[in-house]
């Protein structure tokens, strides 16, 4: 059957079961949009291309499917770069289609031309410029394959206008694409070694990262933990990979991790890491990180092994397959837990929990941001899908909301992209129209993609924004307070808009609370409206996120706020 390039694109999107595209039209993609006009694929018109990519990314994180964005050439394409780099840092499977000027004009500095494959080479898993119509179908297929297999990631496909307008024979049965990445499988010997280390260990800890969620291994993890009763901590990206209300849950570790998670890491004799890459925000000073422990590192990506931390037993494998194998061996070898030894370790952890619990002080007439997040958790009973912006709001969301269900914490971990959370929430809401989706935001971040309010209203997406407004770029201000003798260089937002009025102007419901007793009633009112709602909380301006490990310090040396330094 003879088809135009634009028809082939939409045909393959259907074959790939794409139901939603986030996009923004323009001259180079006008033919694709003309085809979309006749298509039943849902298109969400964003207000900025960065928003399209974050929305596709949020959609992917929540649903486990590949997210898709479509933008025009030149500025449309360059506006996607932050979104692509965000997805790349967190290994999120998205495919971004960019329009391109006709192949005859490429390299001529044509109107709205940019070398987007050149620009995005280091921040995509792979990218393509389709120069011939014959290559179009196999390239799009391969793009989806690359995005979702192995360690997932963003793939960009650049589509010149003349290629999309030309015609070719399309027969899906003849498309040959290279198979995706092979599934890494580790040898049984490695797993037997792991069993041996597990048997020898008295004080083990499991550290999970985003790989457990990306690898859809949360069930297997739970089975493993319940059998072995090993306490679990997590990176920011691993949050919601293990139930946050489980007794063996330690909370997040690292720079703003809990005291007891960091102490457990510093005192454990076996650290089993799954799908995490030992980022500097997690390890602190690398020489003292888990320095008493043997380390097992299970990861799908061989390049993550021994990159930041040299480990004793690397296992390169898909996490789900690895955990299935380990659970199988536990049963087969009749793994017997030394109950007294394990209890002693858990008692020690309990003592640390009592010594320094995760806490804050809600007193006086000023709303504490942590209080808002805690109330949000109580009122939603942990059932909401939370997205976050970046900074203090993100850390409080990580600390004071407990994530019981997988894929309910959605945040830019690696790149730390302010302006991510709100468009991501739009993407999540598209994937789950009936879910309660809440973006926990700060006044700095929300203004970076505030234009997407129009998108939410246009498509009746009832996303909720919980805005913790302190009129500061709070995290940088906190560093200035702690490390720069309170020289608040350009972190005070002297002017912020009246957020309630902004919300109302866009067609949101806007609510504001200024006193602690207003928090709960306002959340109750705002959260359950079947409309998009912005809830602004004017919070304590100079509240800091604690505990805190100084950048480059050991994770067992934490600043705890009102208490003394603990060593």
């Amino acid at each position, binding site marked *: 059957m003879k088809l135009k390039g634009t028809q082939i694109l939409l045909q393959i999107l259907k074959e790939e079961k794409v139901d939603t595209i986030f996009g923004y039209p323009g001259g180079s993609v006008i033919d694709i949009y003309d085809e979309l006009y006749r298509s039943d694929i849902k298109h969400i018109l964003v207000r900025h291309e960065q928003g399209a990519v974050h929305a596709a990314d949020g959609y992917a994180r929540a649903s486990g499917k590949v997210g898709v964005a479509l933008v025009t050439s030149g500025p449309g394409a360059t506006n996607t770069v932050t979104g692509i780099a965000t997805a790349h840092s967190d290994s999120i499977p998205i495919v971004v289609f960019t329009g391109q000027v006709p192949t005859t004009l490429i390299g001529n500095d044509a109107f709205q031309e940019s070398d987007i494959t050149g620009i995005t080479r280091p921040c995509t898993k792979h990218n393509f410029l389709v120069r011939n119509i014959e290559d179009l179908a196999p390239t799009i297929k391969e793009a989806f394959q690359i995005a979702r297999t192995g360690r997932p990631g963003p793939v960009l496909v650049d589509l010149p206008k003349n290629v999309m307008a030309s015609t070719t024979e399309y027969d899906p049965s003849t498309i040959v694409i290279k198979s995706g990445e092979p599934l890494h499988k580790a040898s049984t010997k490695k797993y037997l070694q792991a069993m041996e280390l597990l048997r020898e260990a008295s004080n083990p800890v499991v550290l999970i990262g985003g790989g457990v969620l990306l690898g859809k291994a949360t069930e297997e993890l739970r089975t493993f933990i319940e059998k072995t009763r090993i306490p679990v901590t997590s990176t920011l990206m691993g949050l919601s990979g293990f139930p946050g209300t489980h007794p063996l849950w330690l909370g997040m570790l690292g720079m703003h991790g809990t005291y007891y998670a960091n102490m457990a890491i510093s005192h454990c004799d076996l650290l089993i890491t799954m799908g995490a890459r030992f980022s500097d925000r997690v390890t602190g000073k690398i020489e003292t990180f888990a320095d008493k422990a043997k380390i097992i590192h299970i990861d799908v990506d061989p*390049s993550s*092994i*021994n990159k930041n931390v040299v480990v004793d037993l690397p296992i390169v494998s898909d996490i789900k397959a690895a955990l299935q194998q380990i659970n199988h061996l536990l049963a087969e070898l009749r793994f017997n837990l030394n109950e007294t030894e394990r209890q002693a370790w858990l008692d020690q952890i309990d003592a640390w929990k009592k010594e320094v619990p995760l806490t804050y002080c809600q007193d006086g007439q000023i709303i504490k941001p942590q209080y808002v997040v805690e109330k949000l958790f109580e009122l939603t009973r942990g059932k909401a899908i939370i997205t976050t912006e970046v900074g203090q709001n993100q850390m409080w969301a990580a600390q004071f909301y407990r994530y019981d269900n997988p894929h309910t914490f959605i945040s830019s971990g690696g790149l730390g992209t302010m302006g991510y959370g709100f468009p991501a929430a739009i993407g999540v809401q598209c994937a789950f129209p009936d879910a309660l989706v809440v973006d926990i935001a700060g006044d700095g971040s929300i203004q970076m993609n505030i234009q997407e309010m129009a998108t939410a209203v246009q498509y009746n997406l009832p996303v909720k924004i919980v805005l913790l407004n302190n009129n500061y770029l709070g995290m940088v201000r906190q560093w200035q307070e702690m490390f720069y003798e309170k020289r608040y260089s350009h972190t005070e937002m002297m002017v912020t808009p009246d957020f309630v009025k902004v919300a109302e102007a866009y067609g949101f419901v806007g609510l504001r609370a200024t006193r602690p007793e207003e928090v709960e009633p306002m959340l109750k009112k705002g959260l359950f409206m079947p409309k998009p709602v912005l809830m602004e909380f004017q919070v304590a301006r100079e509240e800091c996120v604690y505990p805190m490990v100084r950048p480059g310090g050991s994770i067992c040396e934490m600043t705890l706020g009102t208490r003394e330094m603990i060593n």
Partner: protein
Amino acid sequence: MEKTDKKEYILSLLVNNRPDVLARIAGTLGGKGYNIDSLCVDVTMNPDISKVILTTKATKIMIGRVINALNKLVDVVKVENLSDVEAIKREMILIRMNLMKETKPELMKIIDMLNCKILTFNTDHCVLQFTGGREDVDKVLAALKPLGIDDIARTGAAALERKY
């Protein structure tokens, strides 16, 4: 300590013969702060596959990371560390000499002694070709330098496992 442990590694990559592949390889090394000291690329017996041979200085741990990162590139089919095996390495150099009456006999003697090939020869210039290991090429250059080198072109190293 890391610096002093650095040694030269020679990697042989099989890659898809697609546009942009070299940029991806160079970007991967450059992005991680490694310099490509020498590079040699051409298509293999299979026209869809090219072979890239590159040398870079790194520590043992660092070279492992470089290989892992290269392996992650979609268009890289295989990475071989030729420093792990016994490999034959050869470079080629083209040398254009300024010809002068008084140095000519000495030049002819060296050409003969060092096994250089004469490609062109006229009254003012001659172009020589030499193939050998890096040290041999350096030796030839050193010997010819006093006799008036006009310009040179050196290839990167090509290398192949010996296999017994």
